């Protein structure tokens, strides 16, 4: 099967329109290197840019204090992939975690995940997030990076009803459609990114065909 370039192009255009960054990678290893590189050069706590110096109530401040190191989470990588990424992270003094995200609620720098599917029409990632650690990695991270094989891009959400229907038939399922970063326009209709979820979404497009 040859890659559907029109579909990839639509997906890219729609995702970028909502602030997602699209990065093309030739292999998972290239994606790992990219992730570690971004983590290394980003500020230790990105919220600094916009508020860390503003004092908060005691409890909120105390929670913020719990995050000191650079932390990346990669909950749904295979064991070998995880150790590949871990090696790269170690060189840059980045702590890579796989689980127990519950003790990192103040935030992590990067949540690195696979995406199961994508929807070109809206630039959307579809991620089965039934695992709580996976779910939290995409919620409490400042940057969410998702590795997406181009073969998983569908034209519209309706093309996925069968696959998603199968997930939802399980006793428990948490399916996430993710499009761009977390956003709000609740104050004066001014767009602001990163209100409760990630401030940035990076989609690492993997040529798998």
């Amino acid at each position: 099967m040859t890659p559907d370039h029109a579909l990839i192009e639509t997906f890219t255009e729609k995702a970028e329109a909502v602030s997602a960054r699209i990065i093309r990678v030739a292999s998972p290893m290239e994606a790992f290197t990219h992730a570690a590189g971004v983590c290394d050069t980003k500020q230790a706590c990105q919220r600094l840019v916009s508020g860390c110096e503003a004092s908060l109530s005691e409890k909120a401040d105390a929670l913020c204090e719990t995050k000191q190191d650079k932390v990346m989470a990669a909950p749904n990588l295979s064991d070998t992939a995880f150790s590949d990424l871990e090696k790269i992270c170690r060189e840059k003094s980045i702590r890579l975690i796989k689980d127990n995200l519950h003790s990192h609620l103040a935030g992590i720098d990067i949540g690195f995940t696979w995406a199961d599917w994508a929807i070109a029409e809206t630039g959307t990632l579809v991620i089965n997030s039934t695992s709580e650690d996976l779910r939290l990695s995409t919620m409490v991270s400042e940057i969410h990076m998702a590795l997406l094989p181009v073969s998983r891009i569908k034209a519209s959400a309706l093309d996925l009803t069968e696959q998603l229907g199968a997930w939802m038939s399980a006793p428990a399922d948490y399916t996430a459609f993710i499009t761009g970063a977390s956003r709000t326009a609740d104050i004066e209709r001014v767009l602001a990114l990163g209100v409760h979820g990630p401030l940035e979404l990076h989609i690492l497009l993997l040529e798998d065909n």
Partner: protein
Amino acid sequence: MQTATTLKEYKSEVDKALNNKFQRKALDNFARAYPVARANAFAGMEIDQLIQKVADIKGQALSRLDELYAQFKANAEQKGIHVHLAADADEANRIIAAIAKNGQAKKVVKSKSMTAEETLLNHHLEAQGLEVTETDLGEWIIQLRHEGPTHMVMPAIHLSRYQVADLFSDVTGSKQETEIERLVKVARRELRQKFVEADMGVSGANFALADTATIGLTTNEGNARLVTTLPRIHVALVGLDKLLPTLADALHVNRVLPRNATGQAITSYVTWITGPNPCASGETGKKEMHIVFLDNGRRALAKDPVFSQVLRCVRCGACANVCPVYRMVGGHQLGHIYIGAIGLIATYFFHGRDKAKNLVQNCINCGACKAVCAAGIDLPGLIKEIHARIQDETDHPLSSVLLGKLLGNRSLFHTLLRTAQKAQAPVAKKNGFMRHLPLIFSKAHNFRALPAIAKFPFRDRWPVIKKTKKTARATGPRVALFAGCVQDFVYPEQLEAGVALMQHHGAALSFPMDQSCCGLPAMMMGEKSAAREVARRNILAMHGEKTDHIVTLCASCASHLKHNYPKLFADDPAMLNTVQRFADKVIAFSTFMNDVIKIPETTSASAGTKTTYHAPCHLCRGMGEKKAPGELIRKAGLDFVPAKEEETCCGFGGSFSGKFPQISSQILATKLADIKATGAELLVTECPGCVMQLRGGIEKSGMNIDVKHIAEAMVKRL
């Protein structure tokens, strides 16, 4: 929230809102930005088909509501979800409080839910000693201010960054800057620890899928994801109307919902939750999951032949976004808890007649909401129905009864108009305006000059026209003219211009003398039986005529005759055929000239005046005629400069401008600013009501723009 008990109290609150400068500016900006964003979001898509699909899907689901509920419940219970059905708001609140108590929960985080607003859940939970925190930024802001939302999607649209900064300074105990991005991050950090501490999360749901017992949530901030993930207990409060058979149905609805709400192709997050998911803080490592379905009148409503469509609403808020009244007064005045056109209706069903009785009168009937509704709901029609119903259930105000009686008796009505014409002599000025308003009007009505009643109504002029050769020898399409009372008695020259144009192009005209007011004013006042009676008379008046078309130069009459007459007789099989034949013949003047007569371009070489156009609501939306007037203006050789927001209401609304003069005058001021910006010397439109409003406003404001009915402008270029 509606606390006003009388219309007078309500009006005084409306006046206060009109003076809220920040809100006015915010809503005006939004009203101008929204249509552009929406059009972009739907670019290249068939909007009408998508909306019809939503209407069909929701309509079918509503027709089998009980069955879908049973299916959802069975599937959910099999997966270990606790399903509850609450008959009303109180029961829903009690159920949720009991879940918290049984689960020994003390702290609750909430994501946005209009259904929880409907039941006033927070108040109830707080009264039980629970700490409840709204985590949607807008909802948190209004919670801290102890007020309700002013928009269903943007609850804090009425507040400025300065107000938010003050609020956040109080909450954090330290001074906060007013930069919006900083304020957003303050909320992020303050609320994060609320998520960490909470032991119960309450969400709403946009969809409840019966076949897999899945709930779907559409959000942008991502707070609903944390609400449904971190605390060990999750309660979803869901209106029964959110039930759909399958995921595919929800995906179809979700193609329209975000585009119509905020102009987004999709929200940042759409979350589908099925069954108790893994949760580290749960006792068993799993979430305790409850779904509380709320009836609160929905099951009965779903069976109502007229009103069941109310439940098709997907809560996109678009009906407020385009409402000219909302734009002026905001959500606290145009709703109780639910806001906008759907709010006026939902208030009656969910919160009762007392909360709805003033609100339903504050609809200008421009039809902008109906044209934009994601589920194709006939919002203005239903608002009028409820207004009439409330008057039937309580008392009809004397003024409205008298109006109904008067309109129902043509000869009495016309005699009164003739008497008024004689009585106005001392105050009638030569330019056709009244020198000052008759004493029955208050000062508030003084924003526009009102026209005097014409000395000779059109019906007195017709016998002369009838005898001319042009009338007798015409061989073109047969036209029965429907005048409407404003043109007949106030602006007969508009009808004469129209007659001259139609005759010039060969139309064979008749004017049945038994016709009277179309009855729309009675509908607007909630006098449905009077409206029916007038309609019956007009249909009979035209019945004997051998005619191909019923042409009217008043857009409001046209759309009332064409679309409301068949509805008025929907339950009268004896009349139904007659009324439908009548309605099928009704055509607006510009449509008739452009599409039936197909008039040619003028041969006149003289340069045309710089002309702009105001699209009457009942023409561009009521009759769906958006092109003909512009084409006619060009064909007449006039220099056409379209105005911004051409299709936005002028603020007349018939009896609306009498009842809410302050709102009417503000809508007019916005309209006139757009007209002025074109630099046109001539403003044309196609409705005598719009002429009255625009000409009167221009006269008062001293602008130098001539206002004409399109027929008058065209006849000059013959």
